[in-house]
């Protein structure tokens, strides 16, 4: 009997436990590539080990806290493999574009930019997988759900 194999996942899913980032072994390589590319897009990138630490402590963790603080609005966020610029897509729970929330997204973007990150953060209203692919290549992207319980298996 042929053992069924799981369909390959496009995204590397991150989760947080007690404020710490949890990366499954199967997603570790994608995470490291993403972190390296992201820190290349940062001024004063520094050494590789310090880069990963900066990616986690200066970008991922504060962004996760921000998403938790806005959890009623935010469904998930995606970070495609960065090039010269880090692009973050914040997917909301609403089908409508929220102009008030857009001000918060802009403030978050400016906060990261002021600390040397070349970054853009965009709001995507309740985008499904097909819509997401319109905006970025899902291969190698990081996926983080705002509420840990909402992460699909």
């Amino acid at each position, binding site marked *: 009997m042929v053992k069924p194999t799981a369909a390959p996942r496009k995204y590397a899913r991150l989760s947080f436990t007690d404020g710490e980032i949890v990366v499954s072994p199967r997603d570790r390589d994608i995470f490291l590539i993403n972190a390296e590319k992201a820190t290349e897009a940062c001024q004063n990138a520094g050494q590789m080990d310090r880069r990963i630490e900066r990616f986690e402590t200066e970008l991922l963790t504060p962004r996760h806290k921000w998403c938790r603080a806005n959890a009623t609005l935010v469904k998930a966020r995606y970070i495609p493999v960065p090039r*010269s610029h880090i*692009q973050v897509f914040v997917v909301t729970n609403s089908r409508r574009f929220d*102009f008030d929330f857009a001000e918060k997204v802009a*403030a978050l*973007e400016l906060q990261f930019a002021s600390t040397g990150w070349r970054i*853009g953060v*965009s709001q995507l*209203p309740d985008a499904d997988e097909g819509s997401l692919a319109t905006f970025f290549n899902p291969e190698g992207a990081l996926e983080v759900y705002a509420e840990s319980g909402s992460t699909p298996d």
Partner: protein
Amino acid sequence: MPRADQHRIKAERNRLFLSTISVNNHPDWVVVVAFYTAVHLAERLRAAAGHGDSTGHDDRLTYIQLEHPDIHTHYHIVQNVSMLARYQSNSDFFNQFQCAEIPDRSIAQRLDPIEEYVTKWITR
């Protein structure tokens, strides 16, 4: 490399075109033209300061973040709305936006302040 006054003329022509578009019929084009008006306003700032040309949308956004944070929120929102208009299906866009809110929330509250800021900055 276009000069600051050439970007001013482009922005003014885009603005003139914007005033001719029916928001009820083409709300998506209203926000796209608003964005490209903002693009030339940003490039006008850059040229006037002797900072050269932006290499793309990302580079221009970084420039606004670092050099003109006072208009960053306005520019960011116009860019975000325009991105949705340009790359999504019409049905998605019409589900996400009401035609009636676009003139106020994308133009009056966002593009107008960028124009005012640029005019003041250039003539300061």
